[in-house]
């Protein structure tokens, strides 16, 4: 692909520049402003959810109850999960989509800018509702992020209703964001930018957006049923009235499994941008990447019961869900193979984004393998609800989703700000994060295999050593993220001037714009050959 680059000269920055003061951010309809809002929101939630993780690791530093009552520990694990999933990872990816998709497909802005503003501004209200429950009389939601009935219905604290409404708001925000992204991608591509010429990041986001539209309404539905069971005397999940608590798990995981791909597909897209750039080669197997991503998305609707192997589902069901789950390893393997093949005999250089991408490749694959172990029904009976599961999903979410977002920020930050970040500090941040994350999560595999249950504030003495190691890794990982914050702020405030094409091997329309790009990206569509 090559792009015509004569467009910035037609742009009049004075007439269309941002408004000043706080109203710029409240009333903005600009995709870059909204992207920035999303990213800062995501980072603040990352710190809040991270602070909760630090408290959890502090409590687990040694056996016995140190700081909290078990009830408060349950609130911490619940809130940590909800905030990281709905507050940090999902808005982080939407922020990247807002910033990058119009610039990557040659559009002036998102398709529905006012709806874009609304979908962001719902989030602070949603999380105020959710976080507010901590300060209310009575416990905050304490049933785990999965909110299984009857823990959330009959036994749920009063604050559960706040949790339900905050989930509704988050769902609305995600659905509107997804509609906007689909409309932008399908309607606003520059002439010549056919679907099969789109950058893979755009492709993965298109598929993610469809997943969001398909499953966020199901989550809204299931929490609505919960609300009705709690307040309006229905019995969706109450056995006494003819309902079934296991049904909650089925409906929840029908949402929940596609949700885990919502949290990883955009990261796959980011890797498919970064790895070719620093390998100075074209992405290996572009078409197979597109089909692999689509197959993962379709298969994600057929595997939900692998979260429920121990609920007594019949053998034939267990076998079906086991094999379909293992089948997902095939398209995922295709993607891993393609990234490795892209790097193979490339002119590699390891700047910070590439370091995070390489760590993603190795550590996400490990998380994938422990996922395969969990997919095996007989083994899952041993691993279910142990720290092995905690190790597995943190390996796919932290080096998967979070490293993806961090890599993307390092990769595009010079483009956004017009300044180069400090490569030395970036590398220190990478090594601190990459080492501490393994110190944090790797021992959890052993804890789980030895039988330590998850969501428990106290544990048997034989688990003490590995827990202490994990806690130390956790504290280092948590502290290193302040270095990241410092690097980002330092880069925004100044630094060496970034060229338009920041990375030597980069391809894509975003690099044809100035650094920082004009307030409205492409007022006239570029030509894509």
């Amino acid at each position: 692909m090559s792009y015509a680059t004569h467009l910035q000269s037609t742009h009049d920055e004075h007439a269309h520049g941002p408004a000043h003061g706080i109203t710029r951010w409240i009333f903005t309809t600009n995709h870059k402003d909204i992207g920035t809002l999303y990213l800062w929101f995501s980072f603040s939630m990352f710190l809040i959810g991270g602070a909760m993780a630090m408290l959890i690791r502090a409590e687990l530093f040694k056996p016995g109850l140190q700081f909290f009552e078990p009830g408060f520990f349950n609130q911490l694990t619940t809130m940590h999960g909800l905030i990281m999933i709905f507050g940090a990872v999902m808005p982080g990816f939407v922020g990247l989509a807002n910033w990058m998709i119009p610039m990557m497909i040659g559009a002036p802005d998102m398709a529905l800018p006012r709806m874009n503003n609304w979908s962001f501004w719902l989030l602070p209200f949603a999380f105020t509702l959710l976080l507010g429950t901590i300060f209310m009389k009575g416990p905050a939601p304490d049933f785990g992020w999965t909110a299984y009935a009857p823990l959330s219905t009959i036994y749920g604290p009063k604050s559960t209703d706040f949790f339900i409404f905050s989930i509704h708001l988050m769902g609305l925000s995600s659905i509107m964001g997804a509609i906007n992204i689909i409309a932008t991608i399908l309607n606003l591509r520059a002439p010549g930018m056919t679907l099969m010429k789109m950058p893979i990041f755009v492709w993965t986001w298109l598929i993610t957006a469809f997943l969001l539209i398909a499953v966020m309404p199901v989550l809204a539905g299931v929490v609505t049923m919960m609300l009705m069971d709690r307040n309006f005397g229905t019995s969706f999940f109450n056995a006494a009235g003819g309902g079934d608590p296991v049904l909650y798990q089925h409906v929840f995981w029908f949402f929940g499994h596609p949700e885990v791909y919502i949290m990883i597909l955009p990261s796959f897209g980011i890797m498919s941008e970064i790895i070719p750039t620093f390998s100075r080669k074209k992405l290996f197997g572009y078409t197979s990447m597109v089909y692999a991503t689509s197959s993962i998305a379709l298969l994600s609707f057929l595997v939900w019961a692998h979260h429920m192997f121990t609920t007594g589902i019949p053998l034939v069901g267990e076998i079906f869900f086991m094999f379909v789950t293992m089948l997902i390893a095939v398209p995922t393997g295709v993607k891993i193979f393609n990234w490795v093949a892209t790097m193979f005999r490339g002119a590699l250089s390891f700047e910070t984004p590439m370091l995070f991408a390489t760590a993603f490749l190795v550590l996400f694959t490990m998380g994938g393998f422990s996922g395969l172990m969990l997919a095996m029904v007989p083994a899952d009976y041993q691993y279910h609800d142990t720290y092995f599961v905690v190790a597995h999903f943190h390996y796919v979410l932290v080096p998967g989703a979070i490293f993806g977002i961090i890599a993307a920020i390092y990769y595009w930050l010079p483009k956004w700000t017009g300044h180069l970040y400090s490569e030395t500090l970036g590398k220190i941040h990478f090594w601190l994060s990459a080492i501490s994350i393994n110190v944090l999560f790797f021992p959890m595999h052993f804890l789980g295999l030895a039988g330590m249950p998850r969501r428990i504030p106290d544990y048997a003495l034989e688990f003490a050593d590995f827990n202490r190691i994990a806690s130390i890794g956790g504290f280092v990982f948590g502290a290193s993220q302040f270095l990241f914050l410092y690097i980002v702020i330092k880069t925004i405030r100044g630094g060496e001037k970034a060229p338009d094409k920041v990375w030597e091997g980069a391809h894509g329309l975003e690099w044809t714009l100035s650094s920082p790009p004009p307030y409205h990206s492409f007022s006239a569509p570029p030509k894509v050959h």
Partner: protein
Amino acid sequence: MTNLHKPLLIKLLALTFFMFAFSFALIPLYNVFCKVTGLNGKMDERHPLTYTPRYKTANSDIPSRLVTVEFVVNLNQQLPFLFQAEHTALQVIPGELTISSYYVKNLTNKKIIIQAIPSISPGIVAKYLKKLECFCFGKQALKPGEEMRLPLRFWLEPEFPHDVHRMTLSYTLFDVTEL
């Protein structure tokens, strides 16, 4: 909004509403699926059924065999009731009508309406258990201190799987006074 986006927007919103409705449609789908296949220990609770003694299946010469049916009782949420099964276990010949009963007593000084919810393990045999009469078909109101004998008449279909020799029929008693 320009006309460019309107048709797409309508389709995407329709998909959103469809999926919201679909999440509610999953409830009857799940119940029908479980009843038809007998998964999850759910029984077809249609009644009354008529019982015709049938000891042989068309393609089986085995006249009779014994299946151990264990009776388990549970009280939900520490319901202050006495709830006992007449038998802890019975040897049952598939095809033969079996009669058992339960004893229940209200230990509170309030009138309480109860509902018994059955569950069967292994779930796969649920569709071979047929109930002619069961207290779980309806609710019972018990006055303070009142006791009651609750009847149960059932049979196992002759097609009952040959590799299952032992099954559990469990009843959990729920307080549905306020439901």
